[in-house]
């Protein structure tokens, strides 16, 4: 009895500490996030042109959305882009991090070069890639010409418009590479020494030490990668304007147009919330699967 009461007070004390530690995030969530999110949810049931007051129309936006072929096209393009760019980025950034984690001469310089693309984000980079894939005087077709290949029309041809954007997404792997690199730093070296003594080769050490120890970071990069890819916007906005023939009409680009070009904020909000639910669904599936493949060193006490 005495023991039980002591245990109770201890767990209550822990809960109190937990709430205090979480409080900055909770306060920020309530003040800066939930209000605007709730407002956009409300807008999705209204006709709202931003300038005037929103007028309640019930489910009309959602009904219109189902009938709108452009919405479906935009979801299709976004899903194809994500299905290609997320796994590709995950693998490339992990391999890069492994290479850059070796202690060889000049590694600082290499690490800086490989992070350069992540530093240069935004419009200048989009314009740079627009030039690279310019069919007539761009770098890509010039290089392909050197090895005797006549390059496609890229952004002008609807079948070739999406691949350059997927390739371009690899330009941004510097960020997840850096997170992997930080993760690799956290793997105690004695684990590798123990593995070596037990006769495990480099590949087995990678498979049985690096991957499990890195799994929390892989998990992070996977989830944030999916969230980011499904909201891809800048490339379509600046480079292709959704064309040709809507081949690069990403969902967020389409909802952006509805919101700020056609002044249909209500309809845009409806698209945003459907996209939100889609992203939430993917995230939950991965979260539920995580106990099978994500390994936490300190998981002894974390309750699930």
């Amino acid at each position, binding site marked *: 009895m005495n023991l039980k009461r002591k245990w109770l007070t201890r767990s209550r004390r822990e809960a109190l500490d937990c709430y205090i530690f979480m409080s900055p995030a909770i306060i920020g969530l309530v003040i800066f996030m939930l209000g605007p999110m709730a407002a956009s949810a409300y807008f999705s049931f209204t006709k709202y042109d931003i300038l005037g007051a929103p007028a309640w129309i019930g489910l009309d936006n959602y009904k219109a959305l189902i009938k709108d072929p452009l919405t479906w096209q935009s979801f299709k393009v976004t899903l194809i882009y994500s299905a290609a760019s997320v796994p590709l980025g995950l693998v490339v950034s992990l391999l*890069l991090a492994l290479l850059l984690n*070796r202690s060889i001469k000049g590694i600082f310089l290499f690490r800086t070069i490989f992070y350069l693309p992540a*530093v240069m984000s935004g*419009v200048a980079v989009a*314009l740079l890639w627009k030039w690279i894939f310019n069919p007539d005087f761009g770098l890509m077709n010039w290089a392909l010409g050197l090895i005797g290949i006549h390059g496609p029309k890229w952004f002008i041809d609807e079948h070739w418009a999406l691949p350059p954007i997927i390739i371009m997404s690899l330009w941004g792997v510097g*960020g997840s590479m850096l997170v992997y690199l*930080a993760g690799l730093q956290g793997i105690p070296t004695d684990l590798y020494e123990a593995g070596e003594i037990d006769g495990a080769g480099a590949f087995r050490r990678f498979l049985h030490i690096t991957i499990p120890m890195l799994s929390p970071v892989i998990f992070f990069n996977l989830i944030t990668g999916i969230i980011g890819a499904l909201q891809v916007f800048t490339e379509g906005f600046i480079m292709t304007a959704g064309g040709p023939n809507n081949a690069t009409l990403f969902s967020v680009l389409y909802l952006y147009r509805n919101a700020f070009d056609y002044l249909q904020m209500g309809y845009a*909000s409806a698209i945003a919330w459907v996209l939100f639910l889609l992203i939430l669904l993917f995230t939950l599936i991965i979260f539920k699967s995580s106990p099978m493949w994500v390994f936490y060193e300190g998981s002894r006490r974390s309750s699930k």
Partner: protein
Amino acid sequence: MNKTNPVFASAVRTERKSATVSRRRAERLRDGLTYLLLTLGSLMILVPFTWMVSTSLKRKQDVYTFPPHWIPSPVEWHNYKDAFTVFPFGLYTWNTVTITSFVLLGTLLSCSFSAYGFSRLNAPGRNLVFLVLLSTMMLPAAVTMVPTYLLFNKLGWTNTFMPLIVPAWFGNAFFIFMMRQFYMGIPFELEDSARIDGCSTYGIWLKIIVPLSRPVLVTVGVFTFMGTWNDFMGPLIYLTDENKRTIALALSYFQGSARAAPDLHLLMAATLYAIAPCVVLYFLCQRVFVKGMVFTGVKG
């Protein structure tokens, strides 16, 4: 007994020797391969980057010549000067530095503090709060932009740095998630022994978790710095006074409009100027990433 057998001992010695020799050879081969791959990758990155540098030194009419001239002639060094005589550039740099410093401090403190609660302490509803926090990343910003603006307007914060700085002191879903993943990997034994020595939960966060997570703190710091330094949307929406502008906002001047093509040579010069501090900072910060530093002296 085998130790006394000289024949056996020498056999062992040669075997060991050949083992280290073959190991050294394998090591050298692996180093060579690493260099090869890294150099190839670097070239792929540096070619477009070189184009940016080269474009920034060209005359306007030479930018689109084909095939591209990698070495501009004549070299127009004054592009760099031209790009920034248009603005009070010192003032914009100072504005950017001010905002970035406060955001950096707020993000590092609030995110590592919150992440400790989310990862290593238990409380009812913790996982639900975490999920709600994550969900804030899932709604496209385009539809929360207007209500967020109205909120800051009501608070009387528009045309001040407040909307750009204050939210950073109340956590950020992306970074809290990142730190949580790292904190969950730290063995609990460390905490237990500190607790036995009379350390409070707050002391544990400050004295054990924060020092142990230096690589992830630096990563968050680098991301925050880059993100704030280059942020264009935030300053565009909230800052109306010309003397409150930031560098990223000034850059947009060169990006052209729907009608006019951008002055590519000036845009590239301005972009290179704007990213220079980021590259220097990153180069300095990555020295924290030295293998084996984090857990030295800690045997889990």
